[in-house]
């Protein structure tokens, strides 16, 4: 698009961009500033801290609850991502490359799982997991995370796989490679960016989940960060642990912001791959 670049025009767009940046950053600055306020200043109703302290950060890492939750969150999200992507890669390959009977049915089924309200399966899972010994375990959370992210992962991967030059695979097969060799050595490197995009989306889903985390766990053994934050009591039962909560919020937010900023192109590609194809 060409446009007349009058200075007024430019000024308007620049102002708009500044507004967008403020929109995103002000809440983040606020929680960081809250986490740095000394306990006595938490109620001063100011945006910026007058004095700075790291006492809240020391407090949450001295407590057993938070480091355990951080470890659980990281482990559960990573394992879920690996397994979900592994399963989804096979399914997406089949959907894109093979004209098998019932393919449309499979896609429709996956699509309906994507629209599934999680609250509808929380009760049955809670009941079944208690009997099966999966309640309050990593696996108890990993299973629903894999399942609920599969449609998104298959959808995203399928969109990327359609762009892969599959003739290369045929060439490799003609040259004597087996199906799995052709996949691993030829197709996988080409499809890697798409796989990475899908993996980030799955990881963010698992890292973000709250409903399953509070319904299917009860102790430090498997409780993830969102659940731990919701039930964090702090040292005193009577004072609201505002400072500790703010510090915990900052600790779990910073890595994700870095991840998002580092891989923003991959995330945007992943989010929009399936949704808008002509």
């Amino acid at each position, binding site marked *: 698009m060409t446009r007349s670049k009058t200075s007024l025009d430019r000024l308007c767009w620049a102002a708009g961009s500044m507004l967008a940046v403020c929109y995103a950053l002000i809440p983040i600055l606020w*929680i960081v500033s809250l986490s740095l306020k000394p306990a006595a200043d938490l109620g001063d109703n100011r945006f910026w801290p007058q004095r700075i302290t790291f006492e809240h950060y020391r407090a949450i890492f001295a407590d057993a609850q938070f480091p355990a939750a951080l470890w659980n969150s990281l482990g559960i999200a990573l394992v879920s991502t690996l397994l979900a992507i592994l399963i989804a890669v096979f399914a997406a390959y*089949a959907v894109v490359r093979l004209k098998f009977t019932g393919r*449309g049915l499979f896609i429709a089924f996956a699509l309906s799982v994507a629209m599934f309200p999680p609250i509808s399966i929380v009760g049955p899972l809670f009941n079944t997991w208690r009997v099966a010994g999966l309640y309050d375990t990593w696996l108890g959370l990993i299973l629903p995370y894999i399942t609920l992210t*599969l449609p998104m992962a298959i959808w995203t991967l399928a969109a990327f796989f359609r762009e892969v030059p599959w003739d290369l695979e045929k060439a490799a097969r003609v040259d004597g490679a087996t199906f799995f060799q052709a996949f691993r050595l030829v197709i996988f490197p080409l499809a890697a960016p798409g796989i990475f995009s899908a993996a980030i989306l799955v990881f963010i889903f698992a890292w973000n989940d709250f409903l399953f985390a509070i319904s299917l766990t009860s102790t430090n053994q498997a409780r993830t960060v969102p659940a731990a934050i919701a039930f964090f009591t702090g040292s005193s039962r009577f004072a609201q642990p505002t400072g500790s*909560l703010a510090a915990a919020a900052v600790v779990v937010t910073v890595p994700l912001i870095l991840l998002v900023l580092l891989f923003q192109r991959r995330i945007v590609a992943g*989010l929009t791959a399936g949704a*808008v194809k002509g």
Partner: protein
Amino acid sequence: MQPGRQTDNRLGWLLCAPALIAMVTVTVYPIVYALWVSLFRYDLRFPENRAFVGIDNYLSVLSSAVWWQAVLNTVIITVCSVSAELLLGMGFALLMHRAIAGRKLVRAAILIPYGIITVVAALIWKFAFLPTTGFINSLVGVNLAWLSHRWSAFVVIIATEIWKTTPFMALLLLAGLTLVPGDLLRAARVDGASAWQRFTMIILPIMKPTIAVALLFRSLDAFRIFDTVFIQTRGAENTETVSIFGYHVLISRLNMGLGSAISILIFFCVLLIAAAYLHGFGIADALTGKEEV
């Protein structure tokens, strides 16, 4: 071609089998189980009282004021947040599409809320609005306990939802916006169409499928709202949503029979919303047509 076709079938289902098994065991089986349990009086605190009661659980949910209040609350939150997200998201999308220098900056900035845990976003806004710790009251010059009154609590909840999920909307809309041919806009401009005319008569019609898909995704998502309400009010002050209601009956009160009936009813609400969108916007054809690529 016959043998090749058969290998395709075998291999296709073999490759889809793990995904299919996972989705069936963790979604289809539980929903059937919930349907079964919803026909029983079944309270985990009194498991010996378990008895078949037919549709009694459904009747007691559907005749309770709490359920209908929760439905109304959920609809209010969904409609307000999704329509605001559409407007704001369209603004961000146009901004990212047109701003040349600021494009990367805006994209990076609006991705930040997307990466933040919903629970954390809810906490950030809760602390900002609380009269004890927050800065909003002194900024606006009022003295209001926002989360202690129904309507002001809705304002906080909806603001949080909008802040957190507008980026998703904006990115989808941006992808749709890039499909609009620049030549067409230039031609219209030469013919004297104003910016507003170009937006409503060219950009919007071309983007209609994208807008429909974005609205569908976000409406289904907003209807399931749980995290934000749980953190900010726990459903107090008459702000309970259907998911919060279901959670309280299932997990806090351990009433599996009644809770399962609620789960099934929420499931039907979601189906209804999806069907309404697919029918109303005619995107069913678009989605199935796309699958056959």
